[in-house]
């Protein structure tokens, strides 16, 4: 959300988000950049009341000023849109290290989320991916920035990001980074508040193994969170698979058939992973609920 829009920022903690990105970049006009920096510390405290993680998206043109404005207790990471060179990332890393020290934050706390969201970023990916140990996730592309650099329309139903997404996922995995996997569900409306599309996208992403989504409108938060959370029937099925696998294992078998479906250690691992993810989602939901309740109680 644009950090200079108090209506968005003040209501954010009530939205039920797992995370927030406070934007200093494209949604803030040039004339308000300096003013926007003065808002970051309060905005972090404000949105974090909802229990979600907080990230700030900075400008590649103002790395030092933006980093100094953004790093405060409660921040989990920085995002640099339009990342182009490893020198920019190294400068960002050095600035983060300095400000962490100055503000008494544990060194290395702040992660860097890179967005090589242009053709130039894709071409530079192999340099960028290891340019800082703070980079834990890499390679997500798509959206208006990438469409701009490809010179293509959004919302045509054509998957113009097939190559950069595929290359980005390979480079991320090859360098032991996570990749923000996102299923491609055709969007021909471009509406940022389309809850049905957000849900369909989230379900498809979860089924592919993805765990993250992002949006620009409060309408999509609930559907996206629901879609990325394993539903009760999948949790029950995963528990059944795992129980069957444990039984096989106890009998010294390496594989068996459950309702006509083969179950082996890979299936068991997948089921265990789903259960862990479901547990993490439930914990996050409970945490957010508690945080919102405490904040409301404090206000009343």
């Amino acid at each position, binding site marked *: 959300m644009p950090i200079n829009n108090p209506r968005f920022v003040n209501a954010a903690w009530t939205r039920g988000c797992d995370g927030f990105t406070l934007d200093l970049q494209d*949604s803030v006009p040039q004339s308000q950049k300096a003013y926007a920096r003065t808002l970051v510390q309060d905005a972090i405290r404000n949105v974090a009341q909802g229990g979600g993680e907080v990230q700030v998206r900075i400008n590649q043109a103002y790395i030092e000023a933006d980093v100094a404005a953004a790093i405060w207790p409660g921040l989990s990471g920085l995002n640099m849109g339009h990342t182009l060179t490893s020198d920019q990332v190294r400068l960002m890393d050095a600035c983060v290290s300095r400000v962490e020290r100055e503000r008494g934050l544990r060194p290395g706390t702040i992660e860097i989320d890179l967005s090589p969201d242009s053709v130039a970023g894709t071409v530079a990916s192999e340099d960028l991916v290891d340019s800082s140990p703070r980079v834990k996730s890499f390679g997500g592309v798509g959206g208006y920035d990438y469409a701009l650099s490809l010179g293509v329309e959004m919302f045509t139903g*054509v998957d113009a990001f097939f190559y950069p997404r595929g290359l980005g996922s390979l480079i991320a995995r090859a360098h032991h980074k996570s990749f923000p996997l996102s299923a491609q569900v055709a969007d021909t409306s471009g509406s940022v508040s389309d809850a049905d599309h957000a849900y369909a996208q989230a379900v498809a992403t979860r089924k592919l193994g993805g765990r993250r989504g992002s949006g620009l409108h409060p309408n999509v938060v609930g559907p996206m969170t629901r879609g990325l959370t394993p539903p009760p029937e999948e949790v029950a099925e995963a528990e059944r698979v795992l129980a069957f696998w444990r039984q096989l294992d106890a009998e010294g078998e390496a594989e068996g058939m459950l309702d006509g479906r083969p179950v082996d250690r890979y299936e068991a691992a997948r089921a265990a992973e789903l259960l862990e993810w479901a547990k993490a989602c439930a914990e996050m939901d409970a945490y957010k609920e508690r945080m919102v309740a405490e904040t409301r109680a404090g206000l009343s």
Partner: protein
Amino acid sequence: MLPTSRLVRRSVLTVDGANQAAVASASRADPDAIVLDPPEDLAAMRVALPEALTAAKRGGAEVFVRIDKRRAHAQLKAAVRPGLDGIVLPDPESAADVARLERIVADREREEGLLEDSIEILPLLGTPRGIWNVREIVNATARIRCAAIDEVQLCRSLAIVPTGEFDVLSFSRGRVIVETLAAVKLPLGIGHPLAALPREADHDEVLGVADRARNSGFKGALCPFPGWIAACNQAFTPSDEQVEYYRAIRKAFAEGIARGTAAVPFPGGRMIDVPVDERARLVIDWWERCQRRDAEKAAARSTQGERTA
């Protein structure tokens, strides 16, 4: 501001350079560029090319000659002459392939008294190695201003029998598009299925395929048939509706900035920010360049008509 190529090259028609009637017809079909495929025989090439070159330029098209890199020296001797805009280099696999050709081209420019670096090189990527090395190829020289993918040849190189049912070249196509655009040059291609299975097709079919090509990032297409040209020119030119839409975007964004916000709601539930406004600026600029290019070609045809009359 995003660096982008200023070139307009929406339709590149390949024609048999020994067939004067075909060349004359090609020049009337309104392509942005024509590639003359020269006769195999060098002596025949020397005879055919000067006349073909003159005829091909009558409609205002840029004119290229396709050469065989194994016989590059002899063919360039015949091909590089006043009026020629560039050379098509099939199947380059490395920057060294381009450099070898460039040395000969530079020599020929001097011999012919042409401006230094005036002859363009258009790589036609048709092998797996060429696709993999596209970055070094497109960046090998400033003479390269666009790069094209030859899907017929690529299928042969990969031992793939193309079918309309399956698109197996998405990754290769994406690589050429991304690397060529990153080098601030134009990627050319029409994509699945017509690129790997070229055939005469009606306007609407070519338009549909070319629309998808544009929405994948291609900026123009190689046309093996004159019947494709109008559809490609149309598909790779922003429509009047698009221009109107993007003018409305620019207006709404400017109003948003004046109000102190760069995240501006737009009808239809869309949100405009900097990249959307920048895209709008580029589309309008691209449309204006297409209009200028069309006017140049119309003027060339008109001049030619007056001479004929």
